[in-house]
């Protein structure tokens, strides 16, 4: 098992766990976090891919960096919206999840 494979596998594992978390969590903050972890898993896979050829492929690196930037932006916006929702409605859950306590 080569190192890239290990990284890639770890990335897949993170992705799966986080995806599960995203689907089951009700608290929006948890879901945002879960999505961030999904993103991390994806990026790990990408980096692992880049390591495969002998001179490492530069393109995935560029992609990962772009991806991280995008991820940060989205997370920031999500958090801002969450704060607004909590301020307005007093709950950090989406309306359809609230009745389950």
């Amino acid at each position, binding site marked *: 098992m080569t190192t890239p494979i290990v990284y890639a596998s770890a990335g897949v594992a993170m*992705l799966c766990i986080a*995806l599960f978390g*995203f689907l089951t969590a009700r608290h*929006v903050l948890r*879901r*945002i976090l879960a*999505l961030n972890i*999904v*993103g991390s898993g*994806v990026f790990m*896979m*990408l980096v692992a*891919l880049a390591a495969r050829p002998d001179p490492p*492929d*530069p*393109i*995935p690196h*560029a*992609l990962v960096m*772009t*991806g991280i930037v*995008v991820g940060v*932006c*989205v997370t920031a*916006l*999500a958090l801002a*919206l*969450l704060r*607004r*929702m909590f301020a*307005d*409605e007093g709950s950090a859950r*989406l*309306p359809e999840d609230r009745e389950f306590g």
Partner: protein
Amino acid sequence: MTTAAWMEALLAAPLAGAVIALISGRRAAALVGVVTAFATAAASIALAFAVSRSGVLRYAVGGWGRPLGIDLYVDGLAAVMVAITGVVGACISVCAAGYFAPKPTHADLPSDKHDRAWLYWPLWLMLWGGMNALYLSADLFNIYVTQELIGLSGIGLIALAGGSAISAALRYLLLALAGSLLYIVGVELLYAGYATLDLQQLRDRIDANPSTFAAAALMTAGLLAKSALFPLHFWLPPAHGHAPVPVSAALSALVIKTGFYLVVRLWLHVLPGLAWAHLATLLGVLGAAAVFWGGVQALMQERLKMMVAYSTVAQVGYLFMLFPVASVPEALPGALLLAASHAAAKAALFMCAGSVLAVYGHDRIRSINGIGTRMPLTAVAFALSGISLIGLPPSGGFAGKWLLISAAFAAGAWWWAAIIVLGGLLSAVYLLRALAFAFLEPPIAGFGRAPWGMEATSLVLAFIAVGLNFAARPLSELLNAGAG
């Protein structure tokens, strides 16, 4: 100007406009926005003409070229989508100029939000720029980035309304993000297999192995979530139903189409070599389910705007019925025509709902007696766009459906035709149910006034939707010019 110049203009104009609008602040944002919108719209149309004249073009921005540089690519398909966006976008901008004018008369934008209303313009121009970029992108990763751009600005736009729109925006955000991640995983797998992100190179290198399938499936799933295909539509009605009117219009009419466009691009242009008949059938079935589910839900809505939003769910379904019959040449023009007329008609409908909301202070379908007398322009716009959505002649919706139905028969699959026909009936039921109240006497006196431009714009859009009946020919010619 050349095709390339128009492409640059299409990217630069809205993005630059967004920045200028942001800088110029509350007072001049609207002016900047409208001017930019018209410039962009003009460029979109010019691009369509350029493509029909000189065909497909690939253009490396700044001369960098792939793999690291940004390449732009335009063919008939992209040109059509850009043109749709341009025309409908311009109309939406005019409408927004009235809607977000300093003295708002509308009920769905609380007064304490007025001071943030001008932010619409930078966000909207950004969204537009993102859509143009998406259509003109030549590689998968740029498409990812443009999707995020669209998503972020769209979410911001929804949130402008405040109140319950915030949670809708959040829900949309979560879903869009998840969809993007699925998409990027797929991109990753493709890159792992073929070491390129470029659409054309991928097309040449692609072979049918399981990992390609998996990649394609992941990407498709992500895109389906964004285009709100049943059963991933649940986020759409609240988001579109609660956003400010021009935003609802833009999202429902235009943004939804980006997902559809990408699925078309992916399966018909990049991966045509895969044996994907089952997947195509699945997409068709989901589309059919969407048609019925959306129709039934729309029928049960009490509020006009929510009804219109659910109608989008149904209409998206039609688009996806393209895939089972895509082998027939007239299917794609049909679906695109349907998309175009849906864009125009749906934007018009949202504006109609907005006008009703502004005049009556509510949009409960049962209590809008006599809008035909009180607001004749809106009633006409509603009727005409309704005709197009139902698919009655003469309208773009009819021409599109006709082509799809013909394609279904040509493909020997009459059941798709039957579903399309039945779906049209269903939309007739809910649209005409609402429309009938327009004629009910005596008219209820409304107390407000519709924002300037909104009624007129809705009428223009409705006429466009109807006039698209005659666009089938130029459209397929444009598509062929792109292919050749």
